[in-house]
């Protein structure tokens, strides 16, 4: 459950591509043990923000710290303390589940003596014990997502970043992933920063939500507070519409849409 310790903090974080500002002067604070959800239209800057926080993309301006490390100056320390499940398919379909985890264990320098034990436990926790020696190419979308989460959590990171964790999954698989994420938070106290397009997902999982629009964080708060603020009977959809304006037709450039569809196809 959330504590007072701040795990993610950004100050005027900005990313500019040419003349396009993907993320503009963004201030965000996430506490330890919190599940924070970023929602927004395609191209609102959610993935760009996550890429900066996971050190994949250098910011153009501003600063940010993750697990008390600066994302630019101490990028390697940040990487050692985070797990990341990208929107794309990050497990290798030509390897078995066990082999995918073995690669992660080696990259994160989990001592050889406990490697096998950790991998077996990770597979069991994600209900993949029976599938460990099967090629990931034969997994269902939900199984792949669970394996990706297992890979991202193997080194017991302080923060887990998830970009659209249930995109392309059927309702049953979605709920299974949700339960696993809630379990991880409960048992390991991991802080989660995730993006989603689905309001029911944001409501089911997130302690707090931030709505992004055109590279800015327009509003943050608990799902309940945001809805109450809108008035009686308001839904998160209403909150979303009120905070993203009516120009969502124009947002979501072709690349963002393409990537999302590819990801959905890969997991579906």
């Amino acid at each position, binding site marked *: 459950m959330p504590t007072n310790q701040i795990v993610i903090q950004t100050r005027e974080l900005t990313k500019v591509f040419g003349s396009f500002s993907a993320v503009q002067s963004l201030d965000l604070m996430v506490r330890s043990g919190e599940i924070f959800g970023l929602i927004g239209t395609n191209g609102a800057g959610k993935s760009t923000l996550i890429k900066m926080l996971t050190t*994949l993309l250098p910011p153009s301006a501003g600063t940010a710290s993750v697990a008390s490390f600066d994302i630019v100056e101490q990028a390697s320390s940040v990487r050692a303390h985070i797990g990341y499940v990208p929107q*794309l398919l990050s497990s*290798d379909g030509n*390897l078995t589940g066990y*082999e995918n985890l073995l*690669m992660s264990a080696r*990259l994160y320098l989990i001592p050889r003596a406990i490697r096998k034990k950790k991998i077996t436990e990770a597979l069991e926790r994600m209900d993949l014990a029976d599938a460990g020696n099967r090629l990931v190419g034969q997994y269902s979308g939900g199984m792949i997502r669970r394996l990706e989460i297992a890979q991202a959590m193997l080194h017991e990171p302080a923060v887990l970043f998830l970009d659209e964790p249930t995109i392309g999954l059927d309702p049953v698989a979605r709920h299974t992933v949700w339960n696993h994420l809630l379990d991880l938070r409960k048992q390991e106290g991991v802080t989660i920063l995730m993006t989603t397009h689905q309001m029911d997902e944001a409501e089911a999982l997130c302690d707090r939500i931030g709505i992004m629009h055109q590279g800015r964080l327009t509003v943050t708060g608990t799902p309940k507070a945001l809805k109450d603020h809108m008035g009686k009977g308001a839904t998160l959809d209403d909150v979303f519409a009120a905070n993203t304006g009516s120009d969502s037709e124009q947002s979501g450039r072709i690349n963002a849409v393409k990537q999302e569809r590819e990801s959905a196809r890969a997991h579906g």
Partner: protein
Amino acid sequence: MANPTWFTRVSNFLTQIQAVSDTEFRKLRRDPSEVLTRAFQPAIWLLLFGEVMANVRGLATSSSSYLDFLAPGILAQSVLFSAIFFGISIIWERDLGVLHRQMVSPAPRSALVLGKALASGFRGLTQATMVYLLALILGIHLALEPFSILGVVAFIWIGSALFSTFSLIIACLVKTRDRFMGIGQLLTMPIFFASNAIYPIEIMPTWLRALSSANPLTYEVDGLRALMLADGITKYGLATDFAVLFAATSICVVIAARLYPRLTE
């Protein structure tokens, strides 16, 4: 882990290299079809090109037959061809998202690059096995002592590492498969023909000779020619050959490690 010792650091670095190379090795062992079909190319060069060109008078080199001369060149060529398109698979991994998994890990980028480079050596060695089998059938005078074989393995490994890392650099610059294919084709032929792989440097015009002596493939071929053949000779000396390849590989690894993060930006 406040102050890891020198030994721990090296051992950690090696583990992270192994993380990448081992997965490549497992995938190759599971599905060797690509490497095996590629092995037809050296066969065609030796059987069709070699048999005909052996009759061209200008190419007759001292006492040994042209086929003997050609075999190490074709081995080097197969190393070059299988390594130079390595970048495609990296772009493929980036498009899939598999590369992101490695990039968010604390492993130094140089370890990730070296892991890939080392893995391409497995491909080169598979090719070499095919070329050796064919060479035996064709009656090429091979040196089969353990020292020679080990030397060939070392040269194939470093050659594969060099050209695959070079390929990785191109992948980081062009980022898409289509553009890579174009550039890959564009580079392969000049590297191959401006070398001593299929004809001796002595019959080249002066400008091409200069180009050829600046071409790392020339040193790969020179080393292989000395080690692979029963009465093999080297023009530059094995130490020079290896030193050139090692230096070129080191430079490519440093550049590739700097550029690698571009792929997942």
